[in-house]
């Protein structure tokens, strides 16, 4: 079940987006998020959609693959949309029992659905086209300026890449422990909530112990190799901007300008 979530997974293929510097993609994603809140009119949405579509096509990641990863978030999205649909005050269109659907509510819900789906797709493009290692490298280098205010950027990046590295290992471990307890007659599926939570103890305790054991072993292994933090540490493949990264920055600026401009247009405002 856990294997089906594609959100946050890397999709291996060859594309311009894959080759972009991770710093470009990080900043691009953040800018894209901000841009989504710059406007409230159809022109803005059209620009954002066109931009997103262009990136998706360039990334060579199948669109269906991206959508598959979104399945888990559909429920969250539905709840947000429904709450907005029923709670927003305004001109009532339909009402039944104690619930009223207003014109403003419909617009609000539709806008939110659009925004959330674009947010999710936008961020998944970044993780789909960037390996976790690249991503943390990009973060480390892109956020270096924070060192000036004593933020341990290197350590945070290292923790992130270790955490990401351990996800598949811990999944496998969980699977193993679950099987072992099932072999001892564990019942994980029946009973009420309280009983089920209690049934998880024989799985969680060994899982935590093994996580601590692995962390300990890793720390020893790192120390044995004289790891002492980021000071003076060099990279095998240092990040360097190429001309395509400059082009990408320019496109992003143009896009950002476009959406801010669209936000200021008043003609199509319908709220």
């Amino acid at each position, binding site marked *: 079940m856990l294997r089906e979530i594609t959100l946050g997974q890397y999709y291996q293929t060859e594309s311009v987006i894959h080759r972009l510097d991770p710093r470009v993609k990080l900043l691009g994603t953040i800018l894209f998020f901000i841009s989504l809140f710059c406007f409230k009119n159809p022109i803005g949405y059209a620009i954002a959609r066109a931009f997103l579509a262009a990136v998706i096509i360039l990334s060579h990641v199948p669109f269906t693959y991206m959508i598959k990863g979104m399945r888990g978030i559909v429920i969250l999205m539905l709840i947000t949309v429904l709450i907005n649909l029923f709670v927003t005050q305004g001109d009532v269109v339909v009402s039944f029992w104690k619930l009223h659907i207003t014109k403003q509510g419909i617009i609000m819900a539709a806008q939110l659905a659009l925004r959330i789906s674009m947010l999710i797709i936008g961020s998944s493009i970044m993780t789909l086209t960037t390996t976790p290692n690249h991503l943390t490298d990009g973060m480390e280098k892109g956020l270096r300026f924070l060192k000036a205010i004593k933020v341990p950027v290197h350590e945070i990046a290292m923790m992130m890449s270790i955490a990401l590295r351990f996800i598949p290992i811990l999944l496998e471990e969980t699977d*193993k*422990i679950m*099987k*072992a*307890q*099932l*072999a*001892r*007659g*564990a*019942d994980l599926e029946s009973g009420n909530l309280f009983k089920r939570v209690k049934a998880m*103890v*024989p799985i969680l*305790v*060994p899982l935590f*112990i*093994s996580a601590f054991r692995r962390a300990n072993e890793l720390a020893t292994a790192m120390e044995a190799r004289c790891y002492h933090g980021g000071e003076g540490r060099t990279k095998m493949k240092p990040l360097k901007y190429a001309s395509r990264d400059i082009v990408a920055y320019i496109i992003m600026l143009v896009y950002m300008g476009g959406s801010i401009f669209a936000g200021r247009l008043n003609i199509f405002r319908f709220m």
Partner: protein
Amino acid sequence: MSMIVDHINYIYARDTENPVYALKDICLTIPDGQFIGVIGHTGSGKSTLMQHLNGLLKASTGSIYFNGEDIYDKGYDLKKLRTRVGLVFQYPEHQLFAETVFADVCYGPKNLKLEKQEVELRAYDALRKVGFPEELFFTSPFDLSGGQKRRAAIAGVLAMRPEILILDEPTAGLDPKGRDEILDQIKKLQTKENMTIILVSHSMEDVAEYVDRIVVMNDGEVFLDNTPKEVFGHYKELEKIGLAAPQVTYIMNGLYERGIPVSTEATTISEAADEIMRVFNKSNN
């Protein structure tokens, strides 16, 4: 009362262009009271096969019959099967969780919804059978040595009183003394309790002394299935698939090839010593 594995296949990534066969057309008959060694190197499918025997994995095709019933039948109680076919995983001590060893061993029988008295009786009995020292019954399992943890974990499965006991590399990471002690105790379960034992290992040396029959797995298939003597006779083929016969087999074959008329059938050191002495005394007379 036996288990029959009938032409099972287990396929990963079945719907894709290149499916991977983890198990290929496996057929086995496991009669009561036998001590079977399953040998194969890493990735040969031995652990996968073991997880089929207690229904943790379901074969892609084929069937498994336990006491004449198809375990893949609708309505077959897999939970009950798992208590009758006990599976001890590799490094079982990683699954210990309770505050005391005794409480941990009680977990299995407790899941069978037995009376408290019966649960404790079984736990006590199981710990005794694996030779766990009584003064450590109520200590935390995390304070024990590796060998003692291993015993406690094996007792955890034994306490459910299975008819078939499967052990996946029960001696991995133990020193020779700990290994021999655990294997001796397992052998006793077979001889005294008439339990069927399946011992998974990658070392011929380990199992040669104890088992009645060896199943050699290679690449998801049964490569050889016979008595230890017969299997070790194929030691040259075993080498080709990355396994080795016990050192005794090499010595006896080496002696034979150099013209000393020993029988090459010895599988344990003591048998080999007797055989060499026999030939030696004969030639002296």
